[in-house]
């Protein structure tokens, strides 16, 4: 292949966003952070790169394999590029904002980079917009994050959004309590991940029937909550179900139109979550629009105990897929010689105006060539006449 041609090639998983899309993505980020702001979340901006031991502290060690590293020639220490922004915000809360009143509400937006994409998201770089609620343990805090996520997605125009709730450690707790042998437990977890109720019942020993019931208990929130009431859960699990129920009640009160489902067996990607967690889907859209839940923030930093927190991260690339392609925006062409005061007045009025840099024979044709919908004439933006060439087709 010609070397000059291959110079257009980007590394796998990286891409250019072109005009309409880049604009739409910026709009999503702006709108979502504005929604978070209206709930009282203040925006923070951590750096893209940090020392790896702070970025990967505590429960974040699992992110290690996703991070690009660079050596800091200055301090001679290893730095990691962020693969996820939540731990950075948790670090800010545990260090510089340690003295601020709790609960602390923070939001953020930025790009993350990962060593490898996965099957559903081949992108190695993508945008995250999120919010973290630190130091509040009430079910109302879980509900606020979930309802606010739904509000943010409604504000950007995403349709048919549904949020799937889970209690990620419920099943591990039951498996641990049942003392299923480790080699069988691995197969049992695989069967649970595949939702194969028959295999779960077979492998689960004395908790097989209970786990199979949990697999079957997934679907619309109201139906599942009723089913969970009928199950003989261990006492520790019962407390989490009470919290789930209260959070569902509060979310439904805040967003009665939101589709809420429950799947207590879901645990993939929630390995470090400490309580009520969720995944955001949209009908017909591949992959997840976002996810979040309860975790321990600031573990292994400063005094190291960490504090309870919950939060949400939206993935801008998937959110973008859930939205219709934006309609072309109206833009006016100002032919060479249009008085600057006219152009300025139009721009001040919120119009998009492209200036002509030299005289042209046919200003209308020039406006069309530049992709404009209007032309500035007599101090106003006038819609271009229908294109005779297109009319013929």
């Amino acid at each position, binding site marked *: 292949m010609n070397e000059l041609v291959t110079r257009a090639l980007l590394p796998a998983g990286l891409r250019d966003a072109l005009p309409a899309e880049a604009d739409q993505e910026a709009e999503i980020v702006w709108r979502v952070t504005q929604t978070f702001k209206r709930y009282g979340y203040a925006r923070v901006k951590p750096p893209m790169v940090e020392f790896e031991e702070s970025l990967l502290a505590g429960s974040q060690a699992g992110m290690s394999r996703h991070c690009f590293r660079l050596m800091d020639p200055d301090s001679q220490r290893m730095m990691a590029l962020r693969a996820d922004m939540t731990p950075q915000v948790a670090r800010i809360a545990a260090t510089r904002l340690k003295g601020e009143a709790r609960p602390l509400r923070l939001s953020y937006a930025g790009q993350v980079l990962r060593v490898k994409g996965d*099957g*559903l998201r081949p992108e190695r770089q993508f945008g995250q917009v999120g919010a973290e609620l630190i130091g509040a343990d009430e079910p109302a805090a879980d509900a606020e994050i979930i309802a606010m996520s739904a509000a943010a997605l409604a504000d950007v125009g995403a349709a048919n959004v549904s949020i799937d709730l889970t209690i990620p450690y419920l099943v591990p707790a039951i498996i641990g309590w049942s003392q299923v042998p480790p080699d069988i437990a691995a197969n049992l977890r695989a069967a649970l991940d595949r939702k194969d109720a028959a295999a779960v019942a077979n492998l689960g020993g004395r908790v097989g029937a209970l786990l199979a019931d949990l697999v079957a208990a997934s*679907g*619309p929130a109201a139906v599942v909550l009723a089913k969970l009431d009928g199950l003989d859960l261990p006492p520790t699990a019962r407390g989490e179900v009470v919290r789930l129920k209260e959070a569902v009640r509060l979310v439904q009160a805040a967003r009665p139109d939101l589709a809420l489902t429950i799947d207590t067996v879901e645990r993939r990607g929630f390995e470090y979550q400490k309580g009520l967690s969720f*995944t955001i*889907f949209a009908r*017909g859209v591949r992959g997840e629009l976002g996810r979040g839940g309860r975790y321990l923030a600031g573990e292994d930093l400063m005094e190291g105990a960490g504090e309870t927190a919950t939060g949400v991260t939206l993935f801008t690339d998937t959110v973008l897929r859930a939205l219709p392609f934006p309609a072309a925006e109206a833009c006016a062409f100002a032919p060479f010689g249009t008085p600057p005061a006219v152009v300025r007045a139009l721009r001040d009025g919120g119009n998009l105006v492209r200036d002509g840099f030299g005289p042209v024979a046919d200003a209308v044709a020039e406006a069309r060539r530049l992709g404009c919908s209007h032309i500035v004439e007599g101090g106003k933006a006038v819609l271009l006449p229908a294109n005779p060439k297109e009319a013929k087709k």
Partner: protein
Amino acid sequence: MPANDKLILALSNGRILKEVMPLLYAAGIRPEAEFDNPDTRLLRFQTNDPRLDIVRARAFDVATLVAFGAAHLGVAGNDVIVEFDYSEIYAPLDLGIGKCRLSVAEPADLAGRDDPRKWSHVRVATKYPNVARKHFARRGVQAECIKMNGAIELAPALGLARRIVDLVSSGATLKANGLVEVEHIADVTSKLIVNRAALKTRHGDVQPLIDRISEVARAA
């Protein structure tokens, strides 16, 4: 209702299709007449349920279609499911059909003087490089896998690889090619598979279908 709002069930051609159709009929799912025309050029078929279409694809593609949400449901063997190990696929129901096994096989004369316990490196031809690699890694054996898409049994005779990892049902194909099974990797049956997001966002459409098929599979 937009066309893409229909549920899509992906089925693979061949042996499994013959076994799965009676189950679908029993569950009240009947494809249009063209489905049974062996010369049809159609790949997508309507059913008696206006909200459900059936598509036909190769076995590996059924898993891919369902993983990416292009099809909402499908029928695939667990050989295919574990080979890809897509996190977006649920396999809620073992249909108990398409029974066979995934095995390591080698020429009969080699098997006579070979002890699989002594392997440290093997070269295998297979449709399932991931499954094969994982299987041998668990045994501490380094595996060099040559991916083939069919006629795996030819590989030993032609000198491509001495051993193969492939599906075995009656063993007749192996025998005809002078091969014998030396190791069993996994039992295979066909499963009903479901796209994860579809089960969450269209639970009301998808779950009743799973329940219906589940009932007839249990009765069968």
